[in-house]
């Protein structure tokens, strides 16, 4: 992407004021988005973005400068801007030597060339499939999004990596209407892959799933406002894990003493049924990369092992602070952002119960078939997440739909309250936001049950 000499000169320039670490992150990204809405292909957007960010560490202070100009002069200016921010009279100058060349990420399976005509056709297939579900389907929006992010990272420790990350996602949102009631459904599978992913996850299935959710919820009555057991369908527990404890195990919050999990490594905080991991290496998964955004190879990190807290997620700066290696969780949205510890593909692993037995052994509760996103306050551990498709469980059977339910709970308490973990498994894909940065993440889990949780419906 950029000449080795220029990279080396830029790093050396960034170190001139005595920084202990310097890094160059260069990105060139091309994206295509095609949107079908209201029965029509509304727009096709093709774009390119490129830029470079130069970062230095001085003690625990980071200075960062970024620009979209990749010529040697602009990189030098950015390096000086970063360097001057940490000047304290230090005159230590260490020369960086990058003669060994970059480590390339393992090549992904070659992406077949898919024509725009085919992509447009996929959108129509999703639209047709959604509308075929029921006459109440009123509106369908489908967005095809693909991107190719070419990243080069080099630092003063001699790490130098280069990686191409193709990503693909098809997202469908459906509105169903009956009388005065309007309900929505959505589905959005994604992958670290090229467009050929949509041959394995046909757009028609995505449209149909979204439509079925919207139509099912038309029959929903208002959800209760009460505490009761909650059974989460496969994947849903992953979203819960992400919000209930994942963010609190990101090392920046822990080190800032802003996490409820600070100082609790080695303690049994979750139910013994819970083993939870973050794994940035799952082949082709939406949250996977070969290297994180700081040139550290991605990793599988066990966070909870049989209920005991055993691991945290680190980026380089926070790993330095704790004197441990980075776990490869330093991620950034783009060159315009500082890396911070982030989840990749996080999951609660499958147990041995049969999913049908989990429901059958619940006399009265809520079955959350699909969840929206959530949000956590990491310092209290209190979190919420939305139930997009929910049903009441009565006498061990899934019964009528309920709508308008958000679930609220406290991370450690909810993890301790998981009393059944099934042997199935599912994964949901999303964009996780933290500190104003969105990155692709996946959340996986089997069917599981929380013994007691607050349902925030309107029926008090």
């Amino acid at each position: 992407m950029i000449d080795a000499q220029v990279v080396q000169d830029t790093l050396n320039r960034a170190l001139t004021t005595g920084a202990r670490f310097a890094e160059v992150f260069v990105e060139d990204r091309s994206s295509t988005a095609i949107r079908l809405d209201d029965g029509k292909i509304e727009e096709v957007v093709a774009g390119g973005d490129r830029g470079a960010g130069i970062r230095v560490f001085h003690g625990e202070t980071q200075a960062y400068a970024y620009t979209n100009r990749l010529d040697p002069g602009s990189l030098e200016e950015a390096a000086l801007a970063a360097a001057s921010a940490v000047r304290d009279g230090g005159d230590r100058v260490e020369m960086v030597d990058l003669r060994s060349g970059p480590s390339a990420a393992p090549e992904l399976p070659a992406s077949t060339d898919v024509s725009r005509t085919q992509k447009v056709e996929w959108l129509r297939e999703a639209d047709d499939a959604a509308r075929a579900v029921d006459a109440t389907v009123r509106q369908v929006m489908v967005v095809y999004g693909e991107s190719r992010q070419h990243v080069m990272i080099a630092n003063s420790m001699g790490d130098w990596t280069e990686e191409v990350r193709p990503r693909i996602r098809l997202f469908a949102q459906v509105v169903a209407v009956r009388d005065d009631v309007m309900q929505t459904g959505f589905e959005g599978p994604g992958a670290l892959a090229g467009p050929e992913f949509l041959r394995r996850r046909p757009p028609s299935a995505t449209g149909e799933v979204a439509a079925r959710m919207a139509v099912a919820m038309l029959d929903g009555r208002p959800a209760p406002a009460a505490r009761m057991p909650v059974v989460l369908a496969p994947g849903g527990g992953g979203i819960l894990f992400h919000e209930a404890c994942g963010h609190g195990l990101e090392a920046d919050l822990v080190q800032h003493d802003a996490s409820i999990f600070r100082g609790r490594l080695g303690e049994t905080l979750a139910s013994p049924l819970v083993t939870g991991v973050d794994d940035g290496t799952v082949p082709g998964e939406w949250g996977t990369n070969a290297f994180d955004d700081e040139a550290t190879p991605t990793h599988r990190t066990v966070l909870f092992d049989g209920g005991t807290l055993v691991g945290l997620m680190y980026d380089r700066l926070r790993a330095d602070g704790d004197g441990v290696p980075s776990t490869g969780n330093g991620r950034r949205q783009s060159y315009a952002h500082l890396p911070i510890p982030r989840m990749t593909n996080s999951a609660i692993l499958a147990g041995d119960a049969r999913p049908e037995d989990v429901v059958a052994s619940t006399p009265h509760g809520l079955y959350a078939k699909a969840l929206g996103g959530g949000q956590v306050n990491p310092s209290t551990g209190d979190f919420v997440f939305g139930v997009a498709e929910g049903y009441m469980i009565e006498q061990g059977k899934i019964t009528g739909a309920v709508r308008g339910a958000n679930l609220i709970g406290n991370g450690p308490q909810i993890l301790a309250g998981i009393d059944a973990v099934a042997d199935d498994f599912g994964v949901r894909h999303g964009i996780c936001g933290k500190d104003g940065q969105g990155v692709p993440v996946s959340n996986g889990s089997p069917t599981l049950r929380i013994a007691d949780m607050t349902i925030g419906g309107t029926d008090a």
Partner: protein
Amino acid sequence: MSENAGVPSLADLCARAVRAARTGEGVEAYAGGGRHVDVRVRAGRVESLTSAETRGVGVRTVIDGRVGYAYAADPSLDEVDALVDAARQSAAFAEPDEFNVLPAIEQAEPLSGLYRETQELVPAERKVSTALEFERAAVSAHPDVRKVRSASIADAVSRVAIASTSGGPVAYERTDCWASVSAIAERDGEMQMGFEFALARELDDLEWEPAARGAAERAARLLGGEQPKSERLPVVLDPGAATAFLSVLAGALSGEAVLKGRSPLASMVGQSVGSPALTLIDDGRLPGGTGSAPFDDEGVKTGRTLLVEAGVLRGFLHNTYTGARSGRPSTGNAGRSDHRSVPGVSPSNLSFEPGTLSAEEILRQAGRAVYVQDVTGLHSGASSITGEFSVGATGLVVEGGALGRPLREMTVASTLLEVLSGVREVGSDLRFFPMGGSIGAPTILVGEMTIAGT
């Protein structure tokens, strides 16, 4: 990273795109760029200092009613020609729609005070020292608050130029400066967080001290909170919480949502949608408003739109496309996050008209109620399409006309229309928040909502 003499201006880039138009083609270019500095401090030290200079161009073509769009970061003039080509090729795949038209771009009256040259001259050292003072103010405001999750002082100089085959170029520049802090209160091993911010056009006008005190107070007053019982109760919404609800309502007031069957208000113009105490206005030229600009993101002059008048729905927000399809002019509410996005519909400065009661007077009228300080999970728990919401909340009990003990781990649920019609009092303390535009509300008392806890 100063302006480089060899680099084309944003207006030059736009003009080049327009020149590349072929006969009969509509071509529009939006160029945005700026400089940005962000200083984050914690524990008396600079945690990070980020400085940036970026620019980009987005080109929209309208060819026989078909829209194509292409964008690039910091393109050269030749690369702008290639962008027009890429947008042209994209248009071939879109379906024609007679309402896809480019608006006539006329010179709009500038807004005074939007740009402050003095802000461009503030040295980084002063931003750093202000950030450190800001954090000190937060951690010395309350005995239970000894640290922050982070405190930040940031500023941006932004420039926008737009030109099309229907006019321009038009251009403006602006300066913005902001302070934000999440204070952490601790007592007996319990932690609570309180967020506050301040916005201004320049550092000299930035009132960061009240923000520092406010964040500390908001964190500390939540310590020792308990989960409430589930019941229906009157709710007092803090201006921030009221704004969160208004941001969901804003989605339902978008002309695009209305046209595409995604607004519960679609068929209600002229009807009562809320309490007579409610008047809702979008004002793109509000003096001092953070959402103010002389023209919107497709070059249409901004203006003032009455959306709800004494509880009666009067209309919706439009860009050129949604306006044309609804048989009305654009309200000057075309919005895009930056050059990478096709213009949608966004509020500019959207707010409830303030009433006459202070927040304290509203508390005295509330009876037994719940005061909601912050809401969480808005993106998953509230829908502008169905109008339903159930969000996590922190807050305090209202009893005896004042704030009482804190509440945590509760949800507040209702529907947008129920909340709007249940509004009993609108306070005088209107405050704007940056939430997908600049959205503002005062303290609001709502008759009844469902609180879920134990």
